[in-house]
């Protein structure tokens, strides 16, 4: 038997993704924020030898061409012709949910309804008569509680039953749009039927309605059919005139009013009985505090602060274990691999580089888990609501909060999902401003760099320092987007019409699955891109080697030191003398190591850009790390680790000694206060990593991606040079 193709539709926050996961057993993303599912998700299900193939449509409130998601959802129904559309409804907001149902029914596709959140509805004293709803709409209706998987089998059974029965044929579904519109809709539909080849899925009546709604997407599809589109537009103009005669409305306003009238009549025929739908629910009570004029912003700052605190307190121990583990591996390498290129590559290139990055995995896991929890809880929508007024003054949108947070506005994000998440922003202008500024955020990779740097210089106030770095990143996002919106992206504000979804306790499975998914990406990146970059950077820092004459010079110096020490300390015990000689020679080794690094390709690149970066005071290790970190920001830490480990060849490798990268950097006198300020800001603001640039190009075009690269680089350099020069003169 052929598999049944099911498209799963529903409004944002209706539990559609949760039900999709419950059915397919997959790990699709579940969110409490409008429009979280943009990617296409597919899955399978089997029931009594019957295969089902499911597609998860983006969550949309309607099916107009208003947003990308709505066009995507509609295109799947029109072009792929699923056997059945499964539409999930939020029972607690049934009327609004039915608005989408009505529009899908007008597309005349076979349908099954899943009444989700029945437990919440009952809890709120809502009485929903699902049998009555099924009877009135002539569609199977199943009561569900998606978060516990209730109703899953029943849904799939009724889909199978619908396919088995002869009901799979399209059934006409007509709403009356009143005496002014109905006759025109009829004649438009007839015209379309005459002109279009028969058997097309979108019913003529639906196309007529879309023309009346001034739907550009549908109009463009009708254009190839001779003068059909023009004729229809003429009729639509006539309709508009007629509607205006009878009131000051527009056809599309009248259409949605009539749809809601139809829904109200359904509801009044006994589908819902409730005491009072305007009564505040538990979420309203929580919001009295959580979005309170004074308490709301304070709680928001508190939440941010605790995220830092929890991450560093909980993460410190496992991070230490991982560091010790990698130190031990390096010790093994130094002990058992014969001295030479191979050992240098494995210890200095691979272990130090990848180890420095991988030891942050526990921190990333903790941060992501908290971020996913807040997202699924519904708190992020409140954040958007609270900050919209401020964001608007800077040319952004309250909804920009989500992409910015994903990009690292709370620690541990990543600019790539952040930029992709901008799809939920309706306005092209605010979307562009958000995309271009999101990479300033302190993503997980930059976090690792800042953790090392703060541990090196502000070890007693590491949490506070990190907090300030993140606050600074937010300030720069606002500042730069204001600049962008004044110059290259001018334009008006877009509407902020947004649902505040009820607070819902996230499922452990949903949060864990999503957090793990992100952490796994991080680990995979460490094992692939970062490993490759580490080896490449190691090679760049190792070759070409010092010429033989130089090597001979250092050998000579070592011999000299030995002879001199022996001469100065005649009569010392031989063991003691040996130690003094080694200490003296270690200094030469370090000198040689540094000289070798400066002679290497990396050192030469660094020297080449030095005249420019000297203005900003970067130490050469930071200089070269910045170059490498364009591949992935994690490479900053791994390159610093390699650079500091290669300049520091310690013969008595001691696994217990404090060999952390932070300690090595902290001990380097090159890092004065102006340097620290300049490096901190440059790391925050300069060019996004390669993967982000590619993502920006894909989400916008190459022109904007190029602006992002050149613009951020210039801006970061200007800021860093200013800070370094001003601080140097003041201090």
């Amino acid at each position, binding site marked *: 038997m052929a598999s049944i193709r099911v498209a799963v539709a529903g409004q944002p926050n209706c539990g559609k993704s949760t039900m999709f996961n419950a059915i397919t057993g997959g790990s699709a993303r579940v969110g409490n924020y409008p429009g979280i599912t943009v990617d296409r998700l597919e899955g399978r299900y089997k029931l009594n030898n019957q295969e089902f193939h499911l597609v998860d449509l983006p969550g949309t409130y309607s099916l107009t061409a208003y947003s990308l998601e709505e066009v995507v959802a509609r295109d799947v129904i029109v072009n792929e012709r699923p056997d059945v559309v499964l539409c999930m409804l939020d029972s*607690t907001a049934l009327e609004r949910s039915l608005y989408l149902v009505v529009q899908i029914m007008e597309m005349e596709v076979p349908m099954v309804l899943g009444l989700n959140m029945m437990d919440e509805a009952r809890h709120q004293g809502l009485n929903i008569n699902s049998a009555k709803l099924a009877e009135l709409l002539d569609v199977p209706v199943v009561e569900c509680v998606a978060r516990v998987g209730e109703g899953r089998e029943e849904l799939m059974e009724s889909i199978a039953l619908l396919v088995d029965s002869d009901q799979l044929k399209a059934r006409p579904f007509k709403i009356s749009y009143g005496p002014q519109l109905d006759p025109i809709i009829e004649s438009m539909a007839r015209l379309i039927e005459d002109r279009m080849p028969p058997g097309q899925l979108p019913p003529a009546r639906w196309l007529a309605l879309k023309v009346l709604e001034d739907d550009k997407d549908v109009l463009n599809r009708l254009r190839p059919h001779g003068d059909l589109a023009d004729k229809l537009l003429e009729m639509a103009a006539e309709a508009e005139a007629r509607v205006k005669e009878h009131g000051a409305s527009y056809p599309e306003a009248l259409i949605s009013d009539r749809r809601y009238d139809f829904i109200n009549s359904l509801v009044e025929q006994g589908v819902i009985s409730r005491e009072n739908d305007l009564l505040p629910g538990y979420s*309203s009570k929580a919001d009295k505090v959580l979005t309170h004029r004074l308490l709301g912003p304070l709680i928001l700052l508190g939440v941010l602060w605790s995220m830092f605190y929890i991450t560093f307190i909980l993460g410190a121990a496992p991070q230490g274990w991982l560091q010790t583990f990698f130190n031990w591996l390096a010790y093994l390498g130094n002990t058992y691999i014969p001295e030479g290129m191979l050992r240098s590559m494995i210890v200095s290139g691979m272990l130090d580089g990848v180890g420095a990055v991988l030891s942050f995995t526990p921190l990333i896991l903790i941060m992501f888990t908290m971020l996913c929890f807040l997202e699924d809880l519904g708190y992020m929508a409140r954040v958007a609501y609270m900050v919209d007024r401020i964001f608007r003054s800077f040319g952004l949108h309250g909804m920009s909060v989500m992409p910015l947070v994903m990009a690292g506005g709370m620690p541990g994000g990543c600019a790539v999902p952040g930029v992709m998440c901008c799809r939920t922003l309706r306005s092209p202008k605010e979307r562009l401003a958000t995309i271009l500024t999101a990479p300033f955020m302190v993503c997980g990779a930059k976090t690792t760099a800042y953790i090392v740097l703060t541990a090196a210089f502000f070890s007693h106030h590491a949490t506070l320092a990190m907090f300030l770095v993140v606050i600074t990143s937010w300030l720069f996002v606002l500042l730069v987007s204001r600049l962008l919106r004044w110059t290259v992206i001018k334009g008006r504000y877009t*509407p902020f019409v947004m649902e505040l979804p009820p607070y819902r306790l996230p499922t452990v499975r949903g949060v864990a699955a999503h957090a793990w998914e992100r952490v796994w990406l991080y680990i995979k990146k460490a094992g692939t891109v970062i490993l490759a970059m580490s080896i490449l950077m190691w090679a760049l820092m190792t070759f070409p080697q010092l010429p033989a004459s130089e090597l001979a010079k250092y050998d000579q110096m070592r011999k000299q030191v030995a002879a001199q020490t022996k001469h100065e300390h005649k009569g010392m015990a031989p063991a003691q003398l040996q130690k003094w000689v080694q200490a003296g020679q270690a200094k030469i080794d370090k000198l040689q190591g540094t000289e070798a690094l400066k002679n290497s390709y990396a050192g030469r690149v660094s020297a080449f850009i030095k005249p420019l970066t000297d203005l900003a005071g970067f130490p050469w290790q930071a200089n070269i790390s910045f170059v490498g970190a364009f591949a992935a920001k994690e490479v900053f830490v791994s390159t610093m680790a390699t650079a500091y480990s290669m300049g520091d060849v310690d013969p008595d490798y001691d696994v217990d000694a404090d060999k952390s990268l932070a300690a090595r950097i902290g001990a380097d006198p090159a890092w004065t206060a102006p340097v620290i300020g300049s490096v901190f800001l440059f790391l925050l603001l300069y060019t996004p990593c390669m993967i982000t640039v590619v993502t920006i190009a894909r989400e916008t075009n190459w022109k904007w991606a190029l602006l992002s690269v050149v613009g951020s680089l210039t801006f970061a350099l200007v800021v860093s040079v200013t800070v370094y020069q001003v601080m140097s003169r003041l201090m």
Partner: protein
Amino acid sequence: MVTALRNMSINQRGKIKHVNAKGELGRRIRDMGLVPGTELRIEGRAPLNDPVAIRMRGYTLTLRNNEADLISVEVD
């Protein structure tokens, strides 16, 4: 008495009389169920007094004050 949604105070109730929004904004407002005849109650305002949160049709919707200006409401 008919007033703009913006002028309503917290917890005040009313019934939508007219929605004077066109284009994208109008479509968005209507999609969310803000059509004439809908009963609503002002649930709260954001810390800077804007946007406003309203309770209607069993859920909570937020919109900016300048958007609320376009909606006239019949209040007692």
